[in-house]
């Protein structure tokens, strides 16, 4: 017997607002696919039917930051690109989270050189680091689940009084 048949009349449930909001948020994390180099291919693979990121409510990858609340930075971030990554991050509405996908994004990876930022934590607040070069799609899903876990423990009011200082870019 299905739930619909059981509920022949309007019913009600009790919960807390925090729990409902956190549940809604964590079940619809919309990623901003910041795919810069090879890791992006694995990120794309995570959306295919085999790995199926849609199971987590995160299949809505749109190429605009306006409706996104999770930035997946997948690839080698150079100093020149850092300005762009940060600008797109700033355009995302709060609250928002960041996954640093792969060795390059997390630590500069094998590019120990003047042009590559040695870890995006130098200009972005990172919530989850994903190991690998590239990480397998399962690993990205694992990171996504870690974000969901983090969101499910959050309270709606946590974001209410947050002060957004320091938002201006360093130049241009």
């Amino acid at each position: 017997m299905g739930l619909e048949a059981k509920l022949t009349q309007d019913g009600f449930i009790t919960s807390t607002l925090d729990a409902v909001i956190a549940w809604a948020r964590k079940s619809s994390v919309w990623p901003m696919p910041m795919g810069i180099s090879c890791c992006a291919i694995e990120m794309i693979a995570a959306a295919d039917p085999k790995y199926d990121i849609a199971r987590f409510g995160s299949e809505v990858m749109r190429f605009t930051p306006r409706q996104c609340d999770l930035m997946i930075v997948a690839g080698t971030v150079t100093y020149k690109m850092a300005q762009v990554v940060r600008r797109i991050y700033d355009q995302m509405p709060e609250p928002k989270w960041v996954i640093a996908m792969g060795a390059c994004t997390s630590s500069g990876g094998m590019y120990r050189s003047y042009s590559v930022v040695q870890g995006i934590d130098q200009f972005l607040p990172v919530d989850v680091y994903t190991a690998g070069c590239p990480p397998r799609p399962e690993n990205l899903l694992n990171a996504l689940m870690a974000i969901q876990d983090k969101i499910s423990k959050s309270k709606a009011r946590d974001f209410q009084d947050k002060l957004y200082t320091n938002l201006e870019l360093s130049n241009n």
Partner: protein
Amino acid sequence: MDIKNLIVDKVRNQFGDSLIEVVEFAGDLSLTIDSKKNRELSEFLKSDPELQFLMCKDVTGIDWGTRKNRFTVVYHVYSFQLNFTLRIKCNLEGEETKIDTVADIWLSANWYERETYDMYGIIFKGHPDLRRMYMPEGFEYHPLRKDFPVLGIPNSLPLPNKID
């Protein structure tokens, strides 16, 4: 006549002493020419009916670090007629970093010269649009020079401010 001999003979007839060195290595032919003659040579190679080097495949630089003539500018040009790629080298005198542009002779050289300017700081006189290419505008160093550290110079490249 062999393609390489044809090229060398023609260039030697035309430029005489300005042709400093002819090297053949691993099937490649390299001509070293006086850096003041690079435009003349380019025009000659392109317009000569037998050679017709119509395409500039690459322009780059070499920084020899401590050598007396520190910089060399290298061109790779290609002839469809001969199906042959020729390498031309120009040694710059001392610490000199200026050479005439060939961007109006081979249009493709425009970006290659910008790239060489960006990475080596070699100034192509008469280039229509000599701007930075890979590095941010306003960056004061040239990363492929031998005295530029591999890990860069701390804080020479700006990052956005950190968010806490």
